[in-house]
Structures are given as C-alpha cells and as structure tokens.
C-alpha cells in the first residue's frame, strides 16, 4: 500500500468527498456561462478576429507586408513559432515526465496544461504555414511522391526534421490528452440529463463503462504514451534549436543549443501554465485543487529551468570569448552592446535574474507575485528568441549588408491575433471540457486530501 509522509502538504484542501470533486469540476459545464467567461471570450474573440484579418491580408498581399529585409530574413515569424512551441512543452512535461516521476500534484494541472500544449502547437504550426506565401501548397513540406506535383523534400534540412518532430509531437499530445479525457467525459455523460449535452458527451466518451478492464487498459496506455511522450519533450525543441545550430552563423552555431532550448521551453511553458491557471482557479472556483503548494512546486520548476537557461547563457557568452573566434566573440558583444542591447537586457533580466527571486519562500508562495513573474517570463522568453534570431542576423559579414529590423502592424497583428485565437480555444475548453482530471484526482483524495490526512495522524 502506498503511504504518504505526514510532512507532505495536502494536495486537495478542505473537506472534499468523491462526489464533490465531480460536482466542482462539472459546475461550469452544466451551469450557464459566468459574466467573467463572457467578457473574456468576447475580448479574445475580437483579438482573434483581428489576427485572422491580418493573416488574410498577409496571404493576399504577400510576405512583404512583414518587416523582413534581405539581411534579416527571419524575425517575428520564427520568433513566434519557437515561442509557441516552447510554451507547448510544459503540457507534455507535466503529463508525461511528471507522471513517470509519480508527482501527484500534476493531477490538478495536467488537463489544462495539455490543452494549452495542443493549442500552443497549433499556433506554432500556423507560422511556417503562412510564411510559405502559397499556403495552398503547404502540403509540400511532406515527402510526397513527385507525381503529386511537388519536389522531393530535403532530408538534410532541420526544417524538415521540424515538420516530423512537430507533427509527431502534436499527434501524441492530442492522443494523450484525449485518452485522459475519456473517463471524465463518461462521468459527465452519466451525470447530465438529456439534451444535446448527453448526446455530445456520449459520443465523446467512446462507450467507456468504467469496468476494471477498461481501467487497466487505460493505465497501461497512459504509461506507454508517457514513455513515448518523454523523448518527444526532448526531441521537438532540440530539433527546433537545430534550425539555428546546424548553421554556421555566429550566435547560432553552438553545441549547447538543444538541451538549453528544451530547458527554456519548459521554463516558458510553466510560466504560461501559471498565467492561465492563476486566473482559471479564481474564475472557476478551483482554489481547493490548485492552491499555493501547486504554485510553489511550479515556481521551483521555474527556478530550476530558469537557472539552467542562465547557465547556458553564461556558457555561450564565456565560450564565445574563450574560443578566440573573432566572429563568435563579436556576435555576443554585439548582442549585449549593439543596437539591440535593450532586447538582450530584457532577456537577461526576465529570464535569469528575476526567477532567482523565487528562492525566497515568501515570494514563491505569493500568488500575485507569481502571476506578475509569469508574465515577465513569457515576455523574457519571447525576447530570448528575438535576440537569438534578429541580433544574430542583422549584422551580416559585409558591413554594407548591415541592416535593422522594423516590425510592421502585420507582424504585430498576427502575433497578438494568435494570442487571441489561443485564448478563445482555451476558454472554450474551460467551458465544455472537464478542466481537472477528476477521476485521477479521486485516486489521491484519501492519501493527499486535507481531511483524510488530518484523520490519519
């Protein structure tokens, strides 16, 4: 039998019972939408519409509407792409890696983190798609036979590896997420009475009966998927980093990139999870399930991954000098003191310095402070990619080719638009899907629930 030490803090607060967990999770699904939800979805809907408008404008007029030029051939597009893929990492880490590590606190956050992953990867995939110019030929990125009318893809290109990595990642994350949802959909199906809801959740729950056999298979599949998803956490962002690191551009070509990108991705992903969950727990009344201890654990993940990223920044900086390679040294001096010094300063402050504040228990258990920090980190990680991409490109080998990047309203509109689309999808998820893995949570109620822990000791 599993035991939980008295020293561990309870994960479910208050005097909850099995049926209360079900009721708490189902409340937003069966109830009518709250004022908060209506306001938020209206705002995000408007922003999403603005984004879609900008995308259509881009497709109609062309890539020239972005601020790219012949020196800075990649800027916000790939920055946004990497940023969104990075955000997606937290979901898989929480659902797969923390499952393998038997971290029970993940049960309160995994469902929404996985949803976030899926929406974030969708936003990421949008950028290479619209960058192609002729989006109707987007399927050319796949290795299709020549008769299909396309050219055979270049297997030596990390951009192609990206296609494979991200599509695999997306499919596995989606399946993982959906498998976890099935028993919870079934619980909702059994609770709602009639109407379209009954039909919807009956279809979604795939005939789940709750028999022991179903549960055994469910657990086996979860473990297998966790096993598959764990290397994917590493592979996706490693391959994204290779988009840069396989090149010979100073500032891009450095061997630490793969693990450092992975760590940075988890870092930014956790920041986004915190941003979303700190609002969600309040608006949806989930304070008993997602509380200070969960936030503290996530903040510890943030210190760890932020510090790994910090060590990587310093390593890169140091080795650029140590290498004695003039171009490499210059790339880093230019980052820190060139025309884009401000973006480097934002990156360093937001990603390396500010997370260190979480060493203080008072700060890492303060929800308000955490919320502000999560926004700071989201910003910092966007700037990290901007620094890597724009500052490494803008001063070409020939000074006559030196240039600067100026974003246009289309760059901005599309980026803000993806935030709107993302939020809209997330809000729809929060309204119609069980936002907590309620059946999984029930398994820890008796070992980690506050009232049960008290009774035990």
């Amino acid at each position: 039998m599993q035991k939980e030490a008295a020293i561990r803090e309870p994960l479910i607060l208050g005097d909850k019972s099995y049926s209360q967990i079900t009721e708490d999770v189902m409340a937003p699904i069966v109830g009518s939408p709250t004022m908060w939800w209506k306001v938020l979805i209206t705002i995000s809907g408007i922003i999403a519409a603005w984004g879609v408008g900008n995308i259509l404008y881009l497709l109609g007029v062309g890539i020239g509407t972005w601020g790219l030029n012949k020196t800075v051939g990649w800027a916000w597009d790939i920055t946004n792409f990497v940023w969104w893929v990075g955000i997606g990492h937290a979901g898989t880490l929480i659902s797969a890696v923390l499952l393998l590590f038997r971290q029970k606190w993940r049960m309160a956050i995994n469902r929404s983190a996985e949803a976030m992953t899926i929406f974030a990867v969708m936003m990421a995939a949008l950028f290479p798609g619209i960058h192609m110019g002729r989006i109707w030929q987007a399927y050319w990125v796949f290795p299709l036979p020549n008769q299909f009318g396309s050219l055979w893809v270049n297997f030596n290109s990390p951009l192609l590896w990206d296609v494979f990595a991200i599509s695999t990642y997306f499919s596995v994350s989606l399946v993982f997420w959906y498998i976890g949802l099935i028993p919870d959909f079934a619980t909702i199906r059994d609770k709602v009475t009639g109407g379209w809801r009954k039909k919807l959740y009956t279809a979604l729950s795939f005939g789940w009966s709750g028999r022991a056999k179903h549960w055994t298979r469910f657990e086996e599949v979860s473990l297998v998927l966790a096993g598959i998803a764990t290397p994917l956490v590493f592979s996706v962002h490693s391959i994204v980093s290779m988009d840069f690191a396989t090149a010979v551009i100073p500032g891009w070509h450095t061997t630490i990139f793969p693990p450092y990108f992975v760590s940075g991705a988890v870092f930014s992903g956790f920041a986004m999870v915190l941003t979303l969950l700190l609002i969600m727990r309040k608006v949806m009344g989930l304070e008993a399930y997602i509380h200070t201890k969960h936030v503290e654990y996530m903040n510890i993940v943030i210190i760890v991954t932020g510090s790994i990223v910090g060590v990587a920044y310093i390593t890169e900086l140091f080795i650029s000098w140590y290498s004695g390679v003039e171009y490499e040294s210059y790339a880093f001096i230019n980052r820190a003191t060139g025309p884009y010094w401000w973006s480097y300063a934002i990156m360093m402050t937001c990603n390396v310095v500010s997370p260190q504040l979480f060493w203080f228990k008072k700060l890492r258990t303060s929800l308000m402070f955490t919320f502000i920090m999560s926004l700071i980190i989201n910003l910092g990680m966007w700037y990290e990619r901007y620094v890597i991409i724009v500052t490494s490109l803008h001063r070409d080998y020939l000074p006559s080719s030196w240039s600067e990047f100026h974003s246009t309203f289309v760059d901005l509109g599309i980026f803000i638009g993806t935030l709107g689309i993302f939020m809209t999808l997330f809000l729809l998820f929060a309204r119609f899907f069980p936002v907590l893995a309620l059946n999984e949570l029930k398994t820890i109620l008796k070992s980690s629930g506050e009232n049960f822990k008290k009774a035990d000791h």
Partner: protein
Amino acid sequence: MNFVFSKRAKITTLVLMALGVIGIIGGLNSHNPHDHGGQEFWSNLLVCGFYFFAIALGGLFFYALQYAAEVGWSSQLKRVFEGIFHRNIPAFSLVLVIVFIASTLHVNHIYHWMDPGTYSEFVIPATVEGEHSTYTDNAEATGAQVNLGIDKIIKNKRAYLNEGFWWARTLVYLGVFIWFGNWFRKKSIEEDALDGTTLHVKMFKRSAIFLALFAVFSSTLSWDWLMSIDTHWFSTMYGWYVFSGMWVTFMIFATIATLYLRDKGFLPKVNDSHIHDLGKWMFGISMLWSYLGLCQFLLIWYADIGEEVIYYQQRFENYGLPLIVMCIINFVVPFLVLMARDAKRNPVFLRLSGCLILIGHYVDVYLLVMPGTMHGHSHYSWWQPLMFLGFLGLFVYLMLNSFTKAAMVPVNHPFIDESEHHSI
C-alpha cells in the same frame, strides 16, 4: 544495523589495490617509444582519478537532489549514497591534485597551455647544451629573443587559463564538494538521534544551495580539467556532457552497491520497487548521456567548421574502434537491455549491463583525455587496466568502510515510512 565489512570483501579490495600498485609501478616504467616523460602514465592517472571522482561527485549531486526534490522512495538508500561519496570525494580529490601538481611543475605535459613556450612573448635560449630555454614577457631581459613558437590562441586564453586562477578554481571546487559532503554526512548521522524535522528542513535548504553551486562548477570543472587539454578546441555542450557521464556512472554504482547490500541482508526493507527505480535511473540517464553526446557530435559534424571538427577527426582517426564500441555499450546496451520493466527488476540484468556500461564510461573518460595528451600515440598495455582495478579497489574499500560507520538504514527520516511502503 551497521554493515559488517566481511573478510572476503576486505581481501578482495586489498588484492585489487595491490594490483593497482603493480599497475602504477608498471606505468612509471612503461616503454612507449612515443611517450616522453611518463605522459601516458600521468594521463592514465588523470583518467582513473577523474572517473572515480566523478562517480563520487555524481553521488553527492544525486543525494542533494533527493533532498531538494523531497524524494521519498530513496530515503532508505541514503546511507548507500553517503557511503559512495563521503570518503571517496576527498580521496580522489587527492589523486587529481597529485596529477595537477605534477602538471604545474611540468613533470607531465597534460595541459599544453601551462607550457610557458606557448604564451610568452620572448625566449632566452639555453646557453648550455641539454638545459631548457627560459621564457619571459620582458623584452629587456638579457639574451631575450622574440618567441616564434608562441601560440596566439593560447595566449588569448591566458586570462582564464593561467596557473594561479586555475588552481584557485580547482581548490574552490574541491573545497566546496568536500565541505558539503562532510556536512551532509554529519547531519545525516545526527538526525538518527533526533526527533522532529528541523534538521531535515535544514538539509533541504542546504541541498538547494549545493545544487546551485554544482550547476556552475560541474561545467567549469570539466572545462578546466578536461576541455583545456585540447586547448584550442571548445564546445558549449562539453560541461553538460561530462556531467551526464558522472551521473550515470554513479547511478550504476549505487544500483550495484544496493544489490550487494540487499543480498547480504543489510537493507531488509529494500524491495523490487526500489531496484526498479534505480534501474530506471540507469536507463534514463544513459539516454540523457546519449542525447547530449549525439547533439554535440551532430552539430559539429553538420556545420563542419575546421576548428571544431578536429576534435572528432582525431578521435575517429586514432581511436575509432574504442569510440564506436563505447557508443554502442553506453547507448545500445541500456536501450535494449533496460527498456523492459522486468529487466529493471532483475539483479542479473542490472549487474551485467551495469558493469558493461561502467567500462563503457571508463572508455569515454579515456577518450576525453588521451587523444589530447597522447595524440595518436597512446598504447593500451597491461598496466593500465591494473591501475583502473587498483583505484576501483580503493573506491570500494572506502565505500564499504564508510558503511560500517553508521546504521545502514536511517531512522527519523521523515520519508522513511514512505520508502518502506514503496510499491510500484
């Protein structure tokens, strides 16, 4: 219950150490025609010293990680971890310091950048046949001529790679590791006689501080002690690669030690689930090592920049076979053998694959050092494995001796109940 150091184990470790002494004597008298001044002997001493130091340091890291991450299942094994690092970190620090002193005094030439001929502006040629030239940066010195052999790249690294700063760093690393190792051990034994969790909380906090220091030192020490051997070459991944090697060799050592202690009856509450978890760590960190090694290689190979590929070119040309065999052992063996759940619960599988991977990582450290110090001329002969066995004997002796000094299973550890009921 304290561990009893059996006569048989004592004799075995002492015999291994005796073999090691023979190996050292053999090394000092070796006749490699390309070897000047015992370079091969000293390089092997560095390989053995670093290899075992890394296992012990990996132990201290993992131990601190257990506290910082509030891990329950492993609390029964903490005396095993302590035994691995507690005496071995100081002992193998000493081995490393001996190599470093010899390098600084130019007894060996492991660190090319320590040679004043590489960075001095001027040379005063020897007047008497057979004497060494002296080097200086002072143009006014009598008889000074411009040093044509100066290595500009090494000279530019002088701000970091100079004996004073390098020794200061080395002593800080070793001092910090020894201090933390002793402190953890002391407090851990104190906890046995105490009630409450004050000490546990203190250790939790200290372990976080240790991990922060370790995060920096694990990278810098591998640049200082290993990467600087190939003085021109650089790779940002290097530190993490070396770190993952440390970690995996420790995990294997801990697994084998736990199996031994369980068989002898000193860990009565350790069940298959604990062994399974240790096996998962062996598997997982082997994959981490492979991942980091592959990424480093792939990026250097793909970009094909002369300054960088030379590192792998030297290794493929002169050490191709050991390099490939090492990769197969360290990646393919754990991948195939330890993938299945049952394999990770099977002592025979764990011991066999563990010993094989331990040898694989010895070859890895060998390949980190030798191509830089001996170039294509190293010659693997009988005294080198004997030397390795000797240090293995010393390591195991110190570990087993440490086990006798405190109760094998801690009492009053807040997670001990969780660990005893561990079941997966």
